[in-house]
């Protein structure tokens, strides 16, 4: 990260704990209004909670992430064929992994929901298919501690737009995509025609990777 972008990214890199805490707390108060004006900010609030867990081992921030995401991970696993008891156990395990690996989460490349999805998917393969899941080489941030704040915000917002685009797809197409991701079957023909705006997110992640490669040199 060069000097200019470091200056432009104060929220996470300069005063992380205080700023993130304020945002995380505000969010709790206004939870009921989330659907309207705060919807745009939801992903960034989850990112702030991740920073609190990573920097301060903040259990309240973890509890908020848990109450939102653990039931979703459990639902995902049950739709993939796990019974309720197994899904509960694996969901707890996925959330414990989120705590332990919080320092590996890169908000310039994924939303919290996306990152949790990848952990849950890998555990599903471990548990339901009993196969190893090779993952690409880790690309950690370093020596700079944080990605560019503007990159993070843009990626989080684009992830929210993707969620809305998914919700407004024609029913038939949405069901196809759900099947591909939930039912652990091969549906290779779907990829070419998701009808989703994946190009912007791809370009955003590519940019974050280019910055990362530059910083690692």
């Amino acid at each position, binding site marked *: 990260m060069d000097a200019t972008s470091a200056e432009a990214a104060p929220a996470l890199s300069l005063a992380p704990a205080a700023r993130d805490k304020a945002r995380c707390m505000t969010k709790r108060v206004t939870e009921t209004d989330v659907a309207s004006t705060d919807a745009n900010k939801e992903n960034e609030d989850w990112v702030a909670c991740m920073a609190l867990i990573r920097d301060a081992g903040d259990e309240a921030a973890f509890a908020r992430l848990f109450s939102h995401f653990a039931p979703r991970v459990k639902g995902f696993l049950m739709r993939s064929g796990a019974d309720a008891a197994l899904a509960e156990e694996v969901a707890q395990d996925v959330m414990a992994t989120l705590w332990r690996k919080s320092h590996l989460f890169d908000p310039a490349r994924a939303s919290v929901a996306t990152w949790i999805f990848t952990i849950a998917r890998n555990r599903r393969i471990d548990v339901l*298919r009993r196969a190893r899941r090779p993952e690409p080489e880790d690309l950690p941030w370093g020596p700079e501690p944080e990605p560019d704040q503007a990159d993070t915000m843009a990626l989080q917002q684009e992830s929210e737009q993707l969620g809305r685009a998914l919700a407004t797809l024609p029913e038939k197409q949405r069901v196809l995509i759900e099947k*591909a991701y939930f039912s652990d079957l091969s549906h290779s023909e779907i990829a070419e025609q998701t009808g989703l705006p994946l190009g912007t*997110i791809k370009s955003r992640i590519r940019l974050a990777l280019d910055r990362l490669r530059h910083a690692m040199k």
Partner: protein
Amino acid sequence: MTQIKHHLTDALLMAYSAGSLPEAFNLTVATHISLCDECRARLGAFDAVGGALLEQAAVPMAQDGLAATMALIRAGGETTRERPAPRNTGVLPAPLRDYIGGDLEAVRWRPIGMGVKQAILPTSKDATARLLYIPAGAAVPDHGHRGTELTLVLQGAFLDETARFGPGDIEVANEEMDHMPVADIGADCICLAATDAPLRFRALMPRLAQPFLRI
């Protein structure tokens, strides 16, 4: 990073993201992505679809779910905050090294004739992953495919009827494709190849040898 010209298909990236590929294909995809930021970014977009879908399906957790999870975290002991070290500079990317137990020097090659060597990697049985060593200028016998074959170049290069494939490039071949890959003359070629069905060799000798070589 080297200039990579031949990439994964959207179908393979989405299936990898969804978690529906056999292990040997997962290994090949993960190895290519370790070398190719373009495909890493495309995968990130497909993962984002999974993240968006995750928002939909909530099932209530057990009453003591959060407490049980905190207990799980505490039982795990001190949480390490260390970031993984930057990648080692070997020939093989990390996912592949995990299967071999080291870099190229740890590979246990088996000769399969005409100077070509292979090492089959331990994966689940629904597909096979192998490293291939093709001496510079040598050819792999002309063959077709019953399923999908992924060939990822790790060192050197090979050419077939369609194109030239250099380090990091991946060729995705299917039932419609017959080809005879030839290693480029510059250097010995090392590839990771994954197949989900036996290949179809045109000549008799490779066909006879097939059961023994598990190709």
